[in-house]
């Protein structure tokens, strides 16, 4: 059993740019023009699905993530969306746990990131505390804990949480989970939303008092302030096109960091970028253009605008800010008709040869001070062989050029899992004795 018995040893946590693979779990056979008559969320008609193709779509996501773990990514990330055709991941800890087990048994030193169980959406916050803790144990102390508020359509329509309560629930649930992870004694919790007589979760995270907390968001000042106040990591995503909105959001983050007395450590910031690599720029466009365009039209493009902010999700001042604009208009609002050229020009997606892709990523990582990079290499109808080609080319020819970007500044990444040598050795020992039996 080659691989199974490999002696794993966590790599030294030198401060280098951490590059992780993120994947959504789309149904890969969405009909052409779906977005013209349907929503991709909440009411997305399941009649478009062929069950065998659903199985294939789900399994391919797992296989590709494992391929990424083997190919040398620092972390593997998934996230949560319910009642959606573009990310069929109602509980991301399921998929994360399968990857974590496989990675452990193969001795791969890879972080497991869950960008979010939505804390504003959940009605069972202790389940999240338990599942994240279990993942941290399974992965040998390699979990990154994402704590998103949750998208409005998911929290307020799918889970039917009253929109004005979303953020109140988020605050209570985060406080409860963090306390449950490090409590030494069972404790009662008399919250506004949750009441428990004896909080005593099993297991607890190996990483104490908590795995690193990362918070994805759209970059509203309130969220950024909360992240910096608590010394978490802000995760921004490329959906709006960093060429359009990056400057405003990242400047706001670093300005706020300075105002709040935080240092300019680039590892305070994570960014998720869609990337498609091929041998040449021309081949990349030939191979990926139609997949990308179709995916963003039928996925994010088919979420009704009103479902992004159900009445009550944002306070009056925030809605006024959105309506007045003033800032740059991102791509999210016009995904339904987005062309491949627009996706590339706005940098929603970076597409090209390894050199082209590395140049572009290096430039914005430096410009915006990004220490943790997540790349999304599968989109919509992309088949598994093409995705795995993308993974291989990226890890072999792009990733090595990204790692040293911050070497000259000498920062420490306090927000990367520390890993547990002891837990790692225990797994290796169990594997070895199992193989002998």
């Amino acid at each position, binding site marked *: 059993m080659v691989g199974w018995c490999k002696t794993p040893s966590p790599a030294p946590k030198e401060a280098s740019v951490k590059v992780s693979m993120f994947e959504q779990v789309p149904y890969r056979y969405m009909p052409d023009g779906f977005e013209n008559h349907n929503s991709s969320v909440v009411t997305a008609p399941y009649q478009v699905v062929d069950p065998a193709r659903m199985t294939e779509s789900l399994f391919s996501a797992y296989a590709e993530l494992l391929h990424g773990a083997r190919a040398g990514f620092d972390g593997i990330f998934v996230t949560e969306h319910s009642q959606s055709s573009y990310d069929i991941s109602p509980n991301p800890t399921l998929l994360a746990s399968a990857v974590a087990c496989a990675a452990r048994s193969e001795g791969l030193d890879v972080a497991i990131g869950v960008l979010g169980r939505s804390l504003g959406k959940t009605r069972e916050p202790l389940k999240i505390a338990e599942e994240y803790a279990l993942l941290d144990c399974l992965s040998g102390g390699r979990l990154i804990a994402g704590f998103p508020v949750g998208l409005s359509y998911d929290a307020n*329509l799918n889970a039917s949480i*009253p*929109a004005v309560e979303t953020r109140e629930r988020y605050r209570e649930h985060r406080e409860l989970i963090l306390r449950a992870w490090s409590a030494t004694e069972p404790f009662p919790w008399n919250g506004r939303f949750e009441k428990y007589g004896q909080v005593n979760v099993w297991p607890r995270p190996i990483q104490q008092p908590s795995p690193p907390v990362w918070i994805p968001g759209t970059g509203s000042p309130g969220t950024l302030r909360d992240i910096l106040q608590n010394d978490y990591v802000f995760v921004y995503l490329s959906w709006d096109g960093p060429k359009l909105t990056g400057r405003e959001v990242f400047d706001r983050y670093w300005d706020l960091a300075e105002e709040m007395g935080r240092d300019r450590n680039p590892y305070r910031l994570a960014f998720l970028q869609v990337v498609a690599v091929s041998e040449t720029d021309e081949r990349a466009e030939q191979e990926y253009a139609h997949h990308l365009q179709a995916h963003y039209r039928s996925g994010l493009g088919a979420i009704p605008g009103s479902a992004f902010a159900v009445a009550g999700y*944002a306070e009056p001042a925030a809605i006024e800010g959105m309506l007045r604009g003033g800032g740059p208009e991102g791509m999210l609002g016009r995904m339904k008709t987005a062309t491949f050229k627009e996706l590339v020009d706005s940098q929603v997606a970076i597409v090209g040869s390894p050199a082209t892709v590395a140049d572009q990523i290096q430039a914005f990582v430096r410009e915006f001070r990004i220490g943790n990079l997540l790349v999304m290499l599968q989109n919509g109808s992309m088949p598994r062989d093409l995705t795995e080609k993308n993974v291989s080319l990226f890890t072999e020819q792009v990733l090595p050029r990204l790692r040293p970007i911050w070497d000259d500044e000498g920062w420490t990444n306090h927000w990367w899992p520390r890993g547990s040598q002891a837990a790692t050795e225990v797994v290796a020992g169990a594997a070895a004795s199992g193989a002998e039996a």
Partner: protein
Amino acid sequence: MTTSAIAVREETLEIWDGRLKLRVKVAGDGPPVLFFHPLPGLAWHPLLDLLAQEHTVYAPEHPGTSPGDPKAIEQVQTFTELLLVYEEAVRALGLDRPAVVGQSFGGMVAADLAATFPALPSRLVLLAPIGLWRDDAPIPLMEMVAGPPEDLPGYLFAHPDSAAARATLALPEDPDLMVKAIAQSAWNTGCTTKFAWPIADHGLGRRLHRVAVPTLVVWGREDALVPVAYAREFGDRIAGSRVEVLDDCGHVVQVDQPELTWAVMNEFLAG
């Protein structure tokens, strides 16, 4: 009907152990009428002017919906607390057995206030209230609130393109005021739907038998939000109530059928 506005003043009640500054619009002179507004907040419409000709109208603004005080909604955690807040408000205003009128969301508030505190009102008028649920007559409240704005008039009016319907939903022309109005209306709807989401059924159907005062139920036959089947549901549960179903009329009865609505209400309140 007259549309000339009667002078409207505002009272602020410090209630709920000092945690709420509840704003109440007050107009007219005469026996008290307490009016509870629908989902998007209080709009002073012509029906309130008519009521104010022979009554003193008290129209509270649902917590959180008063401009400048959005966080007030956090002080009211449950629908039961909302009813207690309004019972306190009635005492703070010094009202002795007001007639209670409520529309849509406000109708649910009015009906449950009368069921929870049977001695509080003198009469009860329910204009197409939410608050009950039948599986064979679903109320598309979530679809309306979270749906495209252009679909809204179709839920509210029998004739969405009528001048009256358009005037009801008209936004200020001034761009700054328009932005403020849209933002306020969305937040207001968030504050009211807190107690109506996703299904506005707090068990009112099991309490309506407690309503002990003359009750008028008014419904539009073409109501596309709360189907007219609910008129009978309310009527059957409230002993001695009178149900008026108006033809060619949608959810907002006083916009689609202003004269008829006022005629039945006026007669009932005078009776």
